[in-house]
């Protein structure tokens, strides 16, 4: 990744009638970066991608790609290429002609096109399949053809609209790694739209989390996970237990808080949170909690509760613990080291937490539709 800016988006807004699909979008992407736009369906992420591609006009704001303003540049003249969610493989053409479709527009000779197509197919591990008909391809092969067809154009930016959502789980995981490897090898900027948090986290250098047309937070995956800017982002990336807390004292680096159920502790100020309130919301990741039948030693805060549900996930076991005075039960994830399920429904257990694991999430917002 270089320090060169490849995409600069300033104040872009898109409305459909009175519905604001994308509001005040500001984003700068570096050359060679793998960037993901993550959010629930209908949050405007696909619209944002289509605005970059030029398939969608926008009311306000400006987009620059590779230093050039894209305002008047139509989609077919932009230095971007797209991998469509449906893959959009031309059904009347074979694999070779699909991949070479865009090159026929260029000044390249037939032989040069042939070479570039063969090279691109080799790259996506479909070497020699030029003559295969479009309807004879499997889902994974269609995905690779779509990728080769876009990459053969050597775009400045590759746009991917939910590229893996149509594949089954194993294939999807293999393709995640492969696409990441390909992106690093080619050094092309990838902008991917996805609603799958794991896909976004495993593949991206940075992730932008979108809700209701607004880009809420842009950060590296590990920062999004450890310092989400608010409740929405925290709930969309990984699991999270939300707890109400009262701020009793504060300075620029830490907060003295009284966490519901767990009691008094000192936690670090989350730099991504914009507004702090005396009525604070804090979060604890399920895997950061200790669960045990005996009262454990060495934790900053302890609470006792009763196991209300057990869910076995294979690589981990999730326990849901009811604590007196708390509205929601607390989820605890225990790695399945010893192939045992230690607690069962109705057991009384102790929960332990270190104050460093308690995340400051700023003010308590009432979120429509969420409990």
């Amino acid at each position, binding site marked *: 990744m270089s320090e060169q800016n490849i995409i600069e988006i300033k104040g872009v807004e898109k409305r459909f009638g009175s519905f604001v699909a994308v509001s005040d979008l500001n984003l700068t992407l570096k050359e060679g970066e793998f960037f993901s736009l993550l959010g629930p369906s209908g949050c405007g992420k696909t619209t944002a991608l289509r605005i970059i*591609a030029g398939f969608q006009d926008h009311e306000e704001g400006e987009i620059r790609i590779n230093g050039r303003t894209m305002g008047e540049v139509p989609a*077919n003249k932009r230095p971007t290429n797209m991998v469509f969610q*449906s893959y959009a493989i*031309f059904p*009347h053409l074979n694999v070779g002609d699909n991949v070479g479709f865009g090159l026929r527009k260029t000044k390249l000779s037939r032989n040069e096109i042939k070479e570039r197509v063969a090279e691109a197919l080799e790259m996506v591990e479909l070497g020699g399949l030029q003559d295969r008909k479009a309807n004879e391809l499997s889902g994974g092969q269609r995905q690779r053809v779509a990728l080769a*067809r876009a990459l053969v*154009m050597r775009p400045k930016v590759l746009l991917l609209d939910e590229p893996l959502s149509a594949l089954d789980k194993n294939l999807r995981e293999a393709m995640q790694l492969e696409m990441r490897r390909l992106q690093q090898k080619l050094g092309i900027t990838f902008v991917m739209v996805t609603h799958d948090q794991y896909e976004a986290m495993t593949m991206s250098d940075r992730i932008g989390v979108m809700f209701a047309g607004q880009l809420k937070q842009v950060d590296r995956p590990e920062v999004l996970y450890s310092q989400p800017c608010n409740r929405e982002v925290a709930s969309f990336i990984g699991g999270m237990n939300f707890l109400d807390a009262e701020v009793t004292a504060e300075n620029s680096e830490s907060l003295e808080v009284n966490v519901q159920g767990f009691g008094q502790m000192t936690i670090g100020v989350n730099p991504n949170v914009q507004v702090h309130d005396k009525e604070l919301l804090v979060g604890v990741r399920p895997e950061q909690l200790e669960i045990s039948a005996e009262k454990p030693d060495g934790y900053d805060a302890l609470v006792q509760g009763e196991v209300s549900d057990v869910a076995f996930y294979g690589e981990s076991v999730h326990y849901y613990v009811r604590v007196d005075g708390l509205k929601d039960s607390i989820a605890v994830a225990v790695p399945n080291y010893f192939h045992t399920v230690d607690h069962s429904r109705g057991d009384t257990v102790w929960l332990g937490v270190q104050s460093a694991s308690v995340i400051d999430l700023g003010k308590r917002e009432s979120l429509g539709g969420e409990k």
Partner: protein
Amino acid sequence: MAGVLRSETGKGLALSAPATLYVGLLVAVPLCILVAYSFWTQTYVEIDRKLTWANYQEAFTDPLVRHLMIRSVAIAGAVTLATVCLAYPIAYFIAFRTQKKTLWLLLITIPFWSSYLLRVFSWKLILGFNGVLNSALISLGLIQEPLTFLLYNEFAVVLTLAHAWAPFAILPIYVSLQKIDRSLLEAATDLGCSKLERFVRVTLPLTVPGIIAACLIIFIPTVGDYVTPALVGGSQGKMVANLIQVQFGAANNWPLGATLSLLAMLSVGCVAIVFVVAVTALGRRIR
């Protein structure tokens, strides 16, 4: 018996039996009679059932038959070309440019609410010597004398048939356009195509089946049409079907009529096959 009826094959046979019987009685049997007649001869009211090639010899040597056959194919070809070329933009408009698809499709079928014969007659009223068009042009002062080239010629036949068959061309082309995944068009744009290139390289090849269907639906019946040429064709607009009609009527020569019918069918079949093969091959060449 009950076991046979319960099996899948039995059910299929039972379900298709009425249709098979219907088609067998009303198409296959008459066709066989037609073939038989073409090898017989007729003197006045007597049918001579001795098999002979005489009718075929007559059909192949008579210049009138050849002339009318070529004219029929040419007129039907012109009708097909004109109809499909005019229908494509309309189908395109309905498929891509309007939200009120149902309304437009309904509007297109309106001509069917009146009979075919009436529609041909109304063209006669429009194109005639004292017809709507001539009266209008005279009252506007654009012409002094009524135009006579409007009616009773090939032009009138092509115009009337093209109008009558337009919906049959619009519908299959519309269906094939409607079926195109919109992301294919965006992909073509994304890969650098202008709107025109996108049409030639993606939309057109993907609608080839619809175009072929439209062409066949129009070409095959119009070659054999006799109402329109009889009413608006005059003497230079007569087609092979009019000659066949005469054989079964005034000329009272059923065997020759049967022979001409079969030859017309064969030539239409040949033209249609050549056409389908050629267009399909052409569609494949577009990359």
